């Protein structure tokens, strides 16, 4: 589930508010968006890759919050790790031309 909006990393662009397909976030008057409907999060990790500053963290457990803190996620270099694995950068798409899934399907 979505667990962290890092106020230190966030540039308040509100892209996550717009792109989250389940409408989890609310924009605020003068700061980072807030997680307003965490229970609706479908753990799709997509907000992370659209965020231009890797300010969001979605934990792997889908049934409820794990309680991970920003310091822990930072120490384990987890911010932006999904975007890096895909080849997306600063909220921009990339890397699909290197997807080796066709090799997996042949092996199958």
């Amino acid at each position, binding site marked *: 589930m979505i667990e962290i909006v890092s106020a230190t990393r966030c540039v308040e662009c509100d892209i996550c*508010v*717009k*792109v*989250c*397909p*389940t*409408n989890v976030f*609310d*924009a*605020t*008057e*003068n700061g980072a968006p*807030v997680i*307003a409907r965490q229970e*609706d*999060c*479908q*753990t*799709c*990790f*997509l907000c992370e*890759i*659209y965020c231009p500053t890797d300010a969001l963290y979605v*934990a*792997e*457990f*889908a*049934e409820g919050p794990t309680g991970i803190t920003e310091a822990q996620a930072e120490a384990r270099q*987890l911010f932006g*790790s*999904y975007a890096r*694995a*895909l080849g*997306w950068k600063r909220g921009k*798409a990339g*890397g*699909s*031309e*290197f*997807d*080796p*899934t*066709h*090799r*997996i*399907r042949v*092996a*199958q």
Partner: protein
Amino acid sequence: MPKPQRHNSESLRIHADVLVLGGGPSAAWAAVAAAESGAKVVLADKGYLGTSGATAPSNTGTWCVPPGDNRHAVVDRRWQRTGELADQRWMLRCVDTAYQNLLRLSEWGYPFPSEDDGRLYIANLRGPDYMRFMRRRVLMAGVTVLDHHPALELLSDGDAVVGAAGVARQVGHDWRVDAGAVVLATGGCAFRERILGGTGLTGDGYLMAAEAGASLSGMEFTGKYTLAPYGSSLNKGLPFRWASFHREDGSPILGPTGEPLRNGIGDREEELARALIDGPVYARLDQAEPALQGWLRQGQPNCFVTYDRAGIDPFSELFRITLRAEGTVRGTGGIDIVSDDCATGVPGLYVAGDAASREMMTGAVSGGGAVNSSWALASGWWAGKGASTHARRWTGKAFRREARPLGQAGLRPSAFARADIAAAEVIEAVRGEVTPLDGNFFRTGERLEKSAERLESVWRDVRGHLQGEGADRLRSREAASIAASGRWSVAAALHRAESRGMHRRTDLPGRNTALAHRLVITGVDDFRIAGAPGRLAELAS
């Protein structure tokens, strides 16, 4: 401090030739196809076109069969696995149109990977990239896109569907689009299972279509489950193709031949379902060679995000797994199609993708893993063209006559609203009947009878008393759609007194030749189920 919501009493009202409901691949292709034939198109999605639906978070293999003599053989081989319910004519036209659209993607510059010989490999579409790319194509085609505008109900002039209405959930006002034709591309029903894309897939299109008079078919085929790390949303089976499986005491889980299981996908889900009913099950991806490990990591990055964040090395360590229920998303049921242009039989109403029944494509077995994404590519195209042709014929007429909203359950209770009937509890009650392995993966007549009774009582409460206010109308409507979908699914499963494909009746293990046809459901409060033998032959002629 949260921004004050712009509670706009003025509702949005637009006229269009074609209104597409949904924001997954089938909606995107329908919108592009309709716009290309000159229609003025509006696309309204519950979420955000680009991230919502089952494809966006995934990595979808398509059923990509190039033209040539081999096509018939490939289609015939696949047909052999469909439990005799699929139709080769539809399968052939689907691979043909899907292939053309894959070529279109490559012409448009979608960044496909290359084979070793340098040729583009067009049979796989990486979800986030594909759907982001489709959003741009939809906008370039001149389509008006309304994100976070879930539809609540269809509008009818008495003869035809002439639009839809809903709520703009981020601004708090209502919307209404009057249209010459509507395409339902609202996806399947995941019964609120926490799977990729699952939250918004609540079967809304099924209920809207049934209220308008359309039929459903294949609703009994909801017995598909996929492996996932325990508690995760990652219902992606592929890595489990190369795994071993163990019980709590470390003993291996055995396959049908008595050998330890080394592949947990396809038919082998059955042994794992049995083991999971008994107790916790653990897996290790220890059958993957080092090169394959690298490809899995790079090709299925969200699976590995999950392992990395949980601090697990899945190739060397055991980790707990579960089977996630997938409702009609990887099942096959949906709105019945009555003609080649994906019409529903209700004038002005068309259907595409997972919102449609995929029985003619994949019969009683799952179309996940290839067929479903090709079906979205093809059916979206046909529905978009069909809707725009209909709209052209109806030009003007649609806007001259009174339009009546058709939504009932969850919006307009037949008795009186009761505050103690809450959407969340309705959904929990339905889940209790349609998601347990012991009851839905393995089925018995006795258990289905009990489920049917309980779901009738849930439906009476929903129909009589469930009502939301303002933006909460979406929640009550979703709960009503989930309840309706569960009720149809269980009723059809009871009716199908045999086992076939993913419909596994342990009390009736064999196939019944008299049931080698589709079951078509018509109606909402009182519905009837009719066998449709010869129906496909009729469609073909």
